[in-house]
């Protein structure tokens, strides 16, 4: 009975989605605002990656809210999983030699690649969110390779708070210096150079550190408790 009701409901939803989809043409430029960003983006922000200029500059306040959502989700995960039990001495089976050596070899390379991605976020594809995810996957490799070592909880929390603080402080500096929040008050420089775009690279590097430490903290919270229980 329940299954029939569910499938009936699903059919209604699918009909609605299909009726919406046939009205939307594929492959045609639809919005004016996207065209404005493409035409004026480079001269207004000094950044050659338009997606970065939309994320950090035109919709920077939106991004601040999203980063806050990320922070609250990580905090909630820590609160849900925290136990009052005493930490038992963990007897973990060490990883095999091949896995350990491979992880030790790959860890600095992946870390370097992640940092490269978020430093060059305003020139090439990439940026703080992607670079942070790559850095977090490097820490996942540590969790696989050498299990007795844990990612320090205090360190991730400190880096995360520092990243958020830099974002807010740079925004408030724009408010103080030239009138509104997240205003690009530094000189824009020449496009296609590393030092260009004013505050955009600074904010994106802060986002990179924040996202990377947050995702690494999530892995540590979820995985650290495994060995405590089993």
């Amino acid at each position, binding site marked *: 009975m329940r299954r029939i009701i*569910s499938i009936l409901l699903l059919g209604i939803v699918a009909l609605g989605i299909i009726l919406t*989809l046939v009205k*939307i043409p594929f492959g045609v430029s639809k919005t004016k605002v996207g065209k404005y960003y*493409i035409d004026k983006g*480079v001269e207004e922000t000094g950044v050659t990656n338009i997606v970065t200029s939309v*994320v950090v500059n035109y919709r920077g306040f939106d991004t601040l809210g999203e980063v806050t959502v*990320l922070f609250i989700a990580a905090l909630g*995960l820590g609160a849900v999983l925290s136990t009052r039990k005493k930490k038992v001495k963990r007897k973990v089976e060490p990883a095999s030699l091949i896995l350990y050596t491979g992880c030790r070899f790959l860890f600095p390379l992946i870390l370097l690649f992640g940092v490269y991605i978020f430093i060059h976020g305003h020139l090439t594809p990439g940026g703080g969110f992607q670079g942070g*995810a790559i850095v977090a996957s490097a820490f996942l490799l540590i969790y696989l390779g050498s299990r007795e070592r844990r990612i320090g909880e205090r360190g991730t929390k400190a880096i995360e708070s520092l990243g958020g603080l830099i974002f807010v402080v740079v925004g408030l500096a724009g408010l103080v210096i030239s009138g509104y929040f997240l205003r690009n008050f530094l000189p824009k420089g020449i496009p296609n150079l590393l030092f260009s775009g004013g505050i955009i690279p600074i904010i994106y590097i802060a986002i990179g550190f924040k996202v990377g430490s947050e995702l690494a903290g999530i892995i540590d919270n979820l995985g650290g408790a495994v060995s405590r229980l089993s």
Partner: protein
Amino acid sequence: MIYYLGAFGLIFIGLYIVLVKHNLIKVIIGLSILNTGINLFLISIGFVKKGTAPIFSHPGLKAIRMVDPVPQALVLTAIVIGVAVLALALSLAIRLYQHYGTLNLRKIREQKW
């Protein structure tokens, strides 16, 4: 057009898993598939035929046909938030398993309908 079809299929399968399946982890896998489908749908709305990515990779490049950057910026943050919310849901599932000893939604008290 095939992209719309793929996105619609993913949304449909994800909703089916969420509505019909009983296992909590399976439901969360369904949410993840639904999330991917919606992201694919948003990106394919912004696509322009024969367009290039919205990046001026060398100085003399003229913007003749470029895809819409706004949906890409939205989806970029949506993916990262999606993984954090998924982790929160999984931690709640782990807690429920420790408390009730089962992942079956029908057997967990106060969850029947």
